[in-house]
């Protein structure tokens, strides 16, 4: 059975480290904020300038001047800082963010990622995604393993316009956790009740299946 969005977020959250600064993209990545272990402190950055994102506001706290990068109302934790967009991206582009979690349309064995545009269909713009993938040292991509129609999103070569090249090394899908090494996907973990054959069938790029592939604990 494929993982739920919450389970995918929980798998990513297992990589969180105490005292780390993390940027979460829109969608599944956002859910990671709810999965921080109790014994751990993690600070979330929103690239519109807020370091130390808090929970959504109560009705009384709602403030049009306090939003996150998804343009949604938000709060700030005690000890947060708010800076300009240039200063916020200086954190990102200067490599100061410890972990970045992003959604994607496609990832390929070269570590390329496509996430901002489907020509002829959808043009929203890259927002901060190109900066995030170029500036981060540690990136997790979360996405479904295949499209609704069964097309693999783990490719030999991305077909959509790229967001970044050679920058992705770790992917959490609804079926598996994979790493990219030497132009191959390496299957590290599989979702419970998901067969390795199913994962092979839905992975277009070259896939290495080690002798031991543990079941994801989420």
């Amino acid at each position, binding site marked *: 059975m494929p993982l739920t969005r919450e389970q995918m977020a929980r798998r990513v959250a297992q990589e969180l480290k105490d005292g780390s600064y993390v940027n979460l993209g829109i969608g599944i990545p956002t859910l990671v904020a709810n999965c921080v272990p109790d014994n751990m402190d993690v600070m979330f950055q*929103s690239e*519109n*300038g807020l370091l130390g994102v808090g929970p959504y506001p*109560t009705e009384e706290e709602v403030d049009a*001047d306090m*939003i996150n990068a998804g343009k949604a109302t938000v709060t700030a934790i005690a000890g947060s800082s708010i800076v300009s*967009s240039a200063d916020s991206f200086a954190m990102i582009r200067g490599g100061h963010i410890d972990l970045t979690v992003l959604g994607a349309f496609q990832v390929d064995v070269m570590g390329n990622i496509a996430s901002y545009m489907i020509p002829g269909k959808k*043009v*929203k713009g*890259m927002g901060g995604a190109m900066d995030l993938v170029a500036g981060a040292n540690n990136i997790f991509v979360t996405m479904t393993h295949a499209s609704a129609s069964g097309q693999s999103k783990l490719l030999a070569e991305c077909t959509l316009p790229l967001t970044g090249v050679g920058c992705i090394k770790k992917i959490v899908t609804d079926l598996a956790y994979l790493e990219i090494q030497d132009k191959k996907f390496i299957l590290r973990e599989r979702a419970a009740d998901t067969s390795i054959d199913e994962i092979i069938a839905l992975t277009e790029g070259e896939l290495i299946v080690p002798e031991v592939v543990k079941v994801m604990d989420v």
Partner: protein
Amino acid sequence: MAGFDKVVPSLNEAMAGIENGMTIIAGGFGLCGIPENLIAEIQRVGTHSLTVVSNNCGVDDFGLGLLLKNQQIKKIIASYVGENRTFEQQMIAGTIDVELTPQGTLAEKMRAGGAGIPAFFTATGYGTAVGEGKEIREYNGKNYILEEAITGDFAIVKAWKGDRYGNLVYRHTAQNFNPMAATAGRITVAEVEEIVEPGELDPTQIHTPGIYVDRLIQGNAEKRIEQRLTRTA
């Protein structure tokens, strides 16, 4: 000190000198921290063939979306233009030119424009459509592309408080692109919620020094919220 009093009495005077074909740099992120009244004034005046530099382009009926609807914009330089149907239609019809620019690169281009830096190298966009045709250089084993600065005929920004000398302070995340935009306009116009006297703002806490601001006007802001998400207390 009349010499540094930047306050103008009307929106008309605030945007005096705007002409067809000019480049306008606007602060704001989504609908947060946008110079609502200055944008509305550009709509009222009807100046057209504008190049607009802004992270987003408003929504269908608010912010820069008003200028889109009114077909006043020829070209947009932005990082994200989603959630705007008018915009999508104009793009499909080919009546508008769009230069998609990564958000961090856009912010840095504005800063560079204000700081006398004509170009800088950045890793962002290397190997993507954004990097096409741009110079590539390797530093410490990583590839970077050369990006050029942006300056505008006008910069329009929105601040919380501004003193008569044009010193500005932004509120919460409404800061965003405003400080950089303010530095990059030949003429910079600031719309503020409250005008205070010089000396009321702590000198070390000013986000935009008055040297960058040519005109200052007090305006009532609607401050529309794009995505209202709440939790139960």
